[in-house]
C-alpha cells in the first residue's frame, strides 16, 4: 500500500510573510484614499460655496474685516498653493485657529478624540459579538417562528433613527428611572466608573442600529454557510448542527460580513456624530456640528479630514481582519493565483 509520500505544492508560506504583503497593500490603498479624500474635501469647501472669507466672517462683517481675514488665511493665493499649504500644515500639526472662538484647531481636535474613540470602539466591541450571536441564532432557526421574530425585531431596529432612539433611551433610563446621566461626558482619567456610566446610553443607542444591521448580514451569510458541504462534513464527524455552525460556520460567515464593513463603518461614524450631539459628548462630532452651524470653513476642513482618516483606519482594521479570517486572500498574494 505505501506509495510515495506526497507533499503539498507549493510549500505553505508562513502566515507572517503573506500577511505583511497584504498589510502593505492595504496601507497603500489607505494612503491613496486619504489623498483623494483630502482633495474632495478641499474642493467641496473652498470652491462650492463661493468666497470663503465671506462665509466665515458672516453677513454682518464689514468689507475691511473680510479683506483682513482673507489676507490672514492666505485666500488670495492660487488654489493649489492653498491646498498644499493646508496639507503641509496638517502633517506638521498646524491647523490654524478658529475665527469665531479663537481656539487653536489642532489642540482642540486632539482633546476631542478620546470621547469619539471611546464611543465608536465601545460600540464595535459591544455590537459585533452580539450581532454574531443573534445572526447565528436567527440562521439556525430561520424556518421557525423564533427566527422570524428575531428577524422582525432586526427590521424594526434598522428603521429607528439613531437620534430618536437615543432620546427614547434618555427618556426611559435617565428621566424616568434615573439610572444613567442624560448628557455629559466623564474622561476616563478623571473617573473610570463615571466614564463608563456616561457612555452607557450613547453606546446602547448606537449599538442597537449596528446590531440590527449586522445581524441581518450575519443571518444571511450563515444561512448560506449552513448549506455548505463542510458543515455536512462536520456533522458527519459527529458534531451537532449548532456546534458545526459555531466552529466552522461563524468564521466563514464573517467573511462576507467584512466585505460590507465599509458601509457599516460609514454608518457607524455618522451615527456617532449624531449621538455625540444628542448626549452632548465633547467629541469630534460635536465640534463638527458647532463648526458647521457657525460656518467655520477652516475648522470643518481639517476636522473632516481627521474624520475621513478615522474612517479609513477603521476600514484598514476590517481589511486586516478579513486577511486573518480568510487565508485564501493572503495566499493569492504569494502564489499568484
Amino acid at each position: 500500500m505505501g506509495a510515495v509520500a506526497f507533499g503539498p505544492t507549493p510549500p505553505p508560506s508562513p502566515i507572517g510573510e503573506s500577511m505583511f504583503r497584504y498589510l502593505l497593500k492595504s496601507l497603500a490603498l489607505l494612503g491613496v484614499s486619504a489623498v483623494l479624500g483630502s482633495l474632495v474635501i478641499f474642493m467641496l469647501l473652498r470652491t462650492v460655496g463661493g468666497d470663503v472669507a465671506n462665509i466665515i466672517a458672516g453677513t454682518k462683517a464689514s468689507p475691511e474685516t473680510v479683506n483682513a481675514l482673507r489676507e490672514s488665511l492666505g485666500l488670495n493665493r492660487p488654489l493649489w498653493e492653498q491646498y498644499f499649504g493646508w496639507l503641509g500644515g496638517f502633517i506638521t500639526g498646524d491647523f490654524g485657529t478658529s475665527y469665531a472662538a479663537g481656539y487653536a484647531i489642532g489642540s482642540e481636535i486632539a482633546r476631542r478624540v478620546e470621547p469619539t474613540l471611546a464611543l465608536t470602539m465601545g460600540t464595535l466591541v459591544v455590537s459585533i459579538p452580539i450581532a454574531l450571536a443573534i445572526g447565528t441564532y436567527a440562521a439556525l432557526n430561520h424556518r421557525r417562528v423564533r427566527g422570524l421574530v428575531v428577524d422582525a425585531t432586526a427590521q424594526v431596529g434598522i428603521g429607528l433613527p439613531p437620534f430618536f432612539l437615543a432620546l427614547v433611551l434618555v427618556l426611559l433610563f435617565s428621566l424616568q428611572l434615573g439610572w444613567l446621566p442624560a448628557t455629559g461626558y466623564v474622561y476616563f482619567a478623571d473617573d473610570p466608573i463615571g466614564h463608563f456610566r456616561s457612555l452607557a446610553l450613547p453606546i446602547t443607542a448606537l449599538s442597537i442600529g449596528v446590531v440590527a444591521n449586522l445581524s441581518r448580514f450575519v443571518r444571511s451569510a450563515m444561512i448560506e454557510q449552513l448549506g455548505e458541504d463542510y458543515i455536512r462534513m462536520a456533522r458527519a464527524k459527529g458534531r451537532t448542527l449548532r456546534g458545526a455552525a459555531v466552529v466552522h460556520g461563524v468564521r466563514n460567515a464573517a467573511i462576507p460580513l467584512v466585505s460590507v464593513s465599509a458601509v457599516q463603518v460609514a454608518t457607524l461614524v455618522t451615527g456617532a456624530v449624531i449621538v455625540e450631539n444628542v448626549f452632548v459628548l465633547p467629541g469630534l462630532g460635536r465640534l463638527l456640528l458647532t463648526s458647521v452651524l457657525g460656518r467655520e470653513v477652516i475648522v470643518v476642513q481639517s476636522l473632516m479630514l481627521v474624520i475621513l482618516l478615522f474612517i479609513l483606519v477603521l476600514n484598514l482594521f476590517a481589511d486586516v481582519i478579513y486577511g486573518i479570517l480568510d487565508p485564501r486572500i493572503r495566499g493569492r498574494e504569494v502564489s499568484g493565483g
Partner: protein
Amino acid sequence: MLELRNLRIKSGHKVLSDIPTLTVAPGERLGIVGESGSGKTLTVMSIISLLPEGISATGEVLFHGDNLLGMTERRLQDIRGKRVGVVFQDPSRALNPTMKIGRQLAEVLRLHGESTSRDDIRNKMLKLLKQVSLDAPAVINSYPHELSGGQQQRVVIAIAMACGPDLLIADEPTTALDVTVQKSILELLLCLCSENNMGLIFVSHNLGVVQSICDRIAVMYQGALVEVGPAKVILGSPQEQYTRDLIAASPSIPQAKEG
C-alpha cells in the same frame, strides 16, 4: 452488519426513493450505481440521518442490530465519525477553507475522545496521514487550498477513517478529481478497506469505477433498486434491461480486482 429495510425517503408527499432490502456484510465492499436523480446519495445519507431539510426517511436502517433511523440525535452523533465514516464528493468543499488541515483532522479525534493529550493527537494524525500517503507535518499546517484535489481527498479519507469505523460511506469520491488521480484514490480506498476489514459503500454513476473495487453492486434507477448481486454476476449476466444499458454505456476500465 448493515441492513436497510423498507427504506423510503420522502420530500413532503413525494417519494424520492424506496428500497425494500439491502445489506452490507462486515468488510464487504458494496457499490451503488445509478444516474443523477436515482436517489443513491439520499439513500446513503439516510444511513446516518444527514438528510437535507424537508426530506425525511422511514423504515429501518439496522447497524449491528440497532435501528439508526429512530435514534436520538445524541446517539447518532456518537456513531457518526466513529463507527461510520463519510467521504464526500468534492473535497475542496468538504474541507473548511479557513481552517488548517490539522485542526480539522484533530476535530474528529477530539469529538470521540480518541486521544486527549496534544502529543497523542499529533501522533495519531501523523499515523493517519501516513496511511493515506501524505507528508504529514507539512500537511497538518496547511490550508485546504494549498493542497491539490487528490491530496485534499486523501485528507478527507483520513478524517473519515480516523476513529476506526466499521463502515465507510463514499459518495462519488472520485468524481470531482482528475482522471489520473482517480485511480490512486481508488487504490487507496481498496487498500484501507481490506487492511482494516472496513465495510465500504461506494456510490457512483460510473459503473467502471465501481466495478474495479466492489464485491457487490446495487443498481438504482429513479429511486428504486433495480438489481443487486455480486459484481461478477451483475456485469457478466445482468438480469434487467436497465443494467444492460448501463453496462453498455460505460467505457470499460480493465482492472483486475485485488484480493
